[in-house]
């Protein structure tokens, strides 16, 4: 107590001493807005691209100039907007993605509940799912073509096949996310197993379930396009394959860019739904899981 008062009086008598004010260093990147940093990377990327193509370091057949690619993007964009043959192809791919994703959600969620909720599923089914998940799933594409033909069914099957596993894992993990206290609380309230699942375990697990859905959304695009590469058809993947076989690299690039917009749209749709449904769960920027 006496120490404290001594300090107080001594600081009063030392009014003439200089303040110890010092500048805290801030990393430069912390002071730059995100969009400027992103634009910087974009400009550097295009610059390097322009440099290696314009000065002949890389053959134009292997890598077109940024300008050529941009011109082709406008051409493809015009075709898409005016409802040309490319739009028809894109629509087929979009349908494959939608059906594939819907199928993956239905199967993945059901299997996830089986594995995450029942001891039988955990013991007897999970090992097989892990085993299948470690297989290179694209290798099944020829089988799907043989079983389902060259139409969109085989592509939907491959897309769903790839997207199912992350959803299973996300759902199963989500059902285990609720803490011990929440489980005990539901027991003390005399909740049935179904009540516990629907009113506690599923809502608690939504962040993990959505993580699975987001990874699945990325996989479903890859599945649909791989399916088209390996099983033909009339989709956007076929356009890419044909353009590549004609060494029309600017076209390949611009097709991929438009395709990635579809993938991005699907991802954002899932993310938007997550923000609406899991409104209580703060999501970190740029991370897969919320």
């Amino acid at each position: 107590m006496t120490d404290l008062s001594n300090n107080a009086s001594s600081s009063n008598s030392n009014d003439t001493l200089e303040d110890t004010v010092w500048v805290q260093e801030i990393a430069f990147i912390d002071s730059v807005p995100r969009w400027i940093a992103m634009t910087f990377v974009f400009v550097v990327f295009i610059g390097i691209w322009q440099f290696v193509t314009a000065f002949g370091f890389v053959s134009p057949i292997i890598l077109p100039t940024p300008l050529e690619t941009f011109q082709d993007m406008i051409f493809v964009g015009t075709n898409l907007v005016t409802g040309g043959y490319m739009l028809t192809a894109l629509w087929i791919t979009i349908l494959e993605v939608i059906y594939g994703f819907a199928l993956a959600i239905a199967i993945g969620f059901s299997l996830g509940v089986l594995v995450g909720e029942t001891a039988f599923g955990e013991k007897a089914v999970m090992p097989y799912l892990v085993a299948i998940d470690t297989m290179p799933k694209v290798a099944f594409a020829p089988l799907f073509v043989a079983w389902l033909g060259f139409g969109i069914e085989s592509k939907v099957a491959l897309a769903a096949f790839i997207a199912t596993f992350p959803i299973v894992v996300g759902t199963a993990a989500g059902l285990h996310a609720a803490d011990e206290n929440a489980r005990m609380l539901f027991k003390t309230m005399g909740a049935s197993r179904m009540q516990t699942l629907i009113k506690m375990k599923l809502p608690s697990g939504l962040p993990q379930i959505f993580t699975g859905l987001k990874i699945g959304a990325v996989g479903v695009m890859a599945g649909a396009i791989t399916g088209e590469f390996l099983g033909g058809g009339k989709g956007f993947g076929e356009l890419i394959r044909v353009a590549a076989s004609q060494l029309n690299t600017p076209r390949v690039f611009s097709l991929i860019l438009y395709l990635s917009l579809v993938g991005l749209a699907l991802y954002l749709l899932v993310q938007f739904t997550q923000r609406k449904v899991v409104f209580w769960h703060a999501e970190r920027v740029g991370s897969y899981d919320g």
Partner: protein
Amino acid sequence: MTSLMAETKVGAPLGAPVYELNRVSKTYAHNLVVALKEVDLTLRKGSFTSVIGSSGCGKSTLLKIMAGLIPPTKGRVVLQDKPVTGPRRDIGMMFQQATLFPWKTAIENIVLPIEIRDGKPAAKAAMAKAHELMEIVGLKGFEHVYPNELSGGMAQRTSICRMLITEPAVLLLDEPFSALDELSRDMMNMELQRICREQDATAFLVTHSIQEAVILSDEIVVMKPRPGRVSEIVKVDLPRPRTLEMMTTPEFGEIVEYIRTQLDKGEDM
């Protein structure tokens, strides 16, 4: 001092037995591990009982048996003249964590036990009672706030309401405020005392803090480990209502010291 003694008589637990345990034992692993050995315990109406003991003394096992979460291996567990054979609506429980569900508002969390037991319409009908309870614990105006926006103390107040909504005959409190900072904890303990008095509640508290046990309780059950058993039941003759200032009185210090000595004896074994 004489007036203190007079008040003590008034505050002492004189109510009828509400919860009775006779020779309750719990063994695990084919009788090799004795978690609880022949515990006898009576909780009287309106009394506050604490159980204290080092880890492994079987106090959480005891609490789980009293909550109807696990069966005893031997013995009789009777609440309001009916044997406890599972979770019951007349048993209220509160944990160290508030355990509120973030997708439900405070008031929706409070009526959750009703929703689970009697369905959504009953839960809706219980809203009025939930409002009353929230007013009692000082949460008026926070009915439609989500748990994210509540402080730790407010979250625990909400979980008190959730425990009280089914009008339980006994409140089982598992270190309810130990996750809070010390200042909030003291405040919540005084709140808890007030609520228990207002509701004439019968409470059973598991705690690690001797001070907390002494300031809140009429009786303190001292437990010892290996095998988990009741070593002594200490009566606390401090007048009610208790205040935080009482923690500085010699009487308080004496009881705390006595219990500490009892617990230390257990450690020697």
